[in-house]
């Protein structure tokens, strides 16, 4: 077991090294794209704790991202009692505000499970975009709120994109570590027990109410952080920045990454970003296949490609990238562990 721990830590160190070095090898704009992948990754980490570990399905995590994003926008544009807050400090606040919202949603979630819970959370995702329209003086309506483009602080000599990249991935790595500590400890065992059987978990003395609400709160906190970073990177929020479909994409990313595989979620995050923004490139690649000719400029092609890739991925790796890696590496790692 100690060997396993050190292998995991080694992996984490390697990931940190890659994250630190990557911007040197890619263009400036690519760094921005990778930063957005990092934001999706953070949201997926939270969703994984909720869905992968505690077994509660949420189709409304886009709304928690929106809460985080709007918190940042309001604090930096309107300010707190008239004093604009630095974008950096709004990130933890956005996480906490979204986390509180998550705890509140977690309360009714106690009484509902499965499909019914999914519907409730979907309802939140559908109704949230109406709020900024209703309170448009405060929240900016459909015109939205325009933030200042982020600048590296304290005279750091990097581009905006590199700064956002390091900020996002720095936070992402810390949150990955937190999530990892959480799920491998007592809380993680309790959540998994609840997922596998609520009755069995309750009869072993696990407080369902406490852990289910907690899972919602933590996962909404993660989504809030992601939303806040997204608002900073885009320098703009309006209801369309966090559309209903975003919640669905997050579930897609979770399934592709693997429900309870934390690092596998990076692949899920990358997939939902690149299929949304580079489906035309995928269409061009697909044209190399025989008997296929797609026009990458055709409207609607991105949705078709998105759907097709998703079907293929789910057919080939139904357990997600995490599950695939586990299956491939299983013989190797078991040998490694038995030797210890």
């Amino acid at each position: 077991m100690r060997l396993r721990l050190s292998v995991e830590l080694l992996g984490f160190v390697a990931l940190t090294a890659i994250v630190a070095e990557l911007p040197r090898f890619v263009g400036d704009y690519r760094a921005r794209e990778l930063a957005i992948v990092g934001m999706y990754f953070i949201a997926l980490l939270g969703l994984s704790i909720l869905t992968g570990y505690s077994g509660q399905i949420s189709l409304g995590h886009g709304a928690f991202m929106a809460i985080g994003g709007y918190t940042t926008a309001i604090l930096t544009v309107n300010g707190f009692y008239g004093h604009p807050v630095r974008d950096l400090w709004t990130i933890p606040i956005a996480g906490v505000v979204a986390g509180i919202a998550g705890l509140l949603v977690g309360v009714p979630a106690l009484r509902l499970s499965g499909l019914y819970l999914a519907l409730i959370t979907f309802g939140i995702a559908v109704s949230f975009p109406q709020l900024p329209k209703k309170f448009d003086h405060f929240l900016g309506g459909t015109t939205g709120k325009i933030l200042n483009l982020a600048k590296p602080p304290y005279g750091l000599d990097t581009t905006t994109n590199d700064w956002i990249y390091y900020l996002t991935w720095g936070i992402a790595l810390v949150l990955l570590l937190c999530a990892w500590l959480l799920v491998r400890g007592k809380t993680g065992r309790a959540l998994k027990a609840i997922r596998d059987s609520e009755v069995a978990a309750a009869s072993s003395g696990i407080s369902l109410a406490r852990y289910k609400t907690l899972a919602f709160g933590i996962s909404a906190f993660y989504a809030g952080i992601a939303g806040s970073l997204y608002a900073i990177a885009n320098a703009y929020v309006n209801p369309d920045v966090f559309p209903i479909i975003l919640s669905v994409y997050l579930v897609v990313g979770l399934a592709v990454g693997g429900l309870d595989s934390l690092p596998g979620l990076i692949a899920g995050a990358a997939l939902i970003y690149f299929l949304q923004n580079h489906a035309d490139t995928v269409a061009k690649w697909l044209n190399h296949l025989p008997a296929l000719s797609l026009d990458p400029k055709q409207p609607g092609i991105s949705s078709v490609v998105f759907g097709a890739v998703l079907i293929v991925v789910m057919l080939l790796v139904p357990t997600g990238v995490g599950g695939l890696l586990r299956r491939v590496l299983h013989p190797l790692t078991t040998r490694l562990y038995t030797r210890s």
Partner: protein
Amino acid sequence: MGTRILLLCALGATVAATSAGARPVATPGVSATEIHLGSSVPLSGEAAIAGNVARGADAYFKYVNDKGGVFGRKITFTYLDDGYDPGRAVNNTIRLIQQEQVFAVFSSLGTNNNLAVRKLLNDAKVPQLFVSSGATTFGRDFRKYPWTIGYIPPYAEEGAIYGRYVVKNLKRAKIAVLYQDDDYGRDLLAGLRRGLGAKVKSIVAKVGYDPTSADVQPQVTQLKASKANVLMIFAFGKFSLQAFNAVSRLGWKPQIFVNDVSSASALMAIVPQKAANGSISIVFGKDPASPQWATDKGVKLFQSILKKYGDGINSRDLKDGYFTTGMASAYTMVDTLRKAGKNLSRQGVMNAATHLTERGNPFVLPGIVIHTTPSSRFPLTQVRLQRWSGNAWRPFGKLISLKPL
């Protein structure tokens, strides 16, 4: 778990290896042989038809390139789809500046979309040229946003024209207003109120609709209940279509005014004609669907360019006014680039764009002079009124000069 991470490392390295690095240049987007312009427009979604503005401009640039370009430089025009979503417009614009390294952003479409990127373009000192939105702020707030200039007639002035027309010609008007509830619709409404002046009380009902809503029939029903005899449709795309349909279905017969952006012939031709007939709007471009311009040189030129250089053009596109508007602004853009001279800089092109006196743009109405000064950034300020009858728009009256601000 750890080994999994190692594999991810390998994946990360592959991604890194395949990505190309960007390198900075003196003036981004300009070389000895190329000028790179970018734009963000809706090519999908419900406002997709308006994206034809960019396709029209693209065809015109290719035509200019074939004739030698501007001082030997060919214009490359990259237009990205934003689905009329301001969030995606921000993303596209950042991509245009940072990855595509465009020289300037030209003719991006939509009021909210342009508002969302105005600050970041000005902060980066990238020209935001000939915005495809008539929101007054793009021409008016140049002190705060010196890198921005509008193009089409300001919406507030358009509203004022309808107001003055009502005061002069429709003595017993009771006006109902359907407007898009954002800066775009509210600009038109404010202009209408100003144009009505003392007669502002003749507005008996006004109902806004949310630009993301599904249908405006409920709003039209509400407006009909006010017993108004004049209806202002300050809408966009599918909403104006729905408004005409609703008016016809409800058996209402008001005098309709429909704002320029939602009065395309292609749209007017498919709504119920008993509602559409007699509608009034303004016009500044030559409408290729109008029989009046069937033998016009400008429209002929437009059609030949579009046939030769347009991407995936069908016969319907040759009569689509969005394409002519795009060509009109591309014509002004090329004029501006010529005026900016051989040593092209971003400051230089802004200077040229704010000192324009362009006569004889073949794609706008005869007599219109496109004129700007550093403190008057509304290039198009002359329009005519037009009336829809017999399946076509027919201009009437003289050129009207707007006085923005």
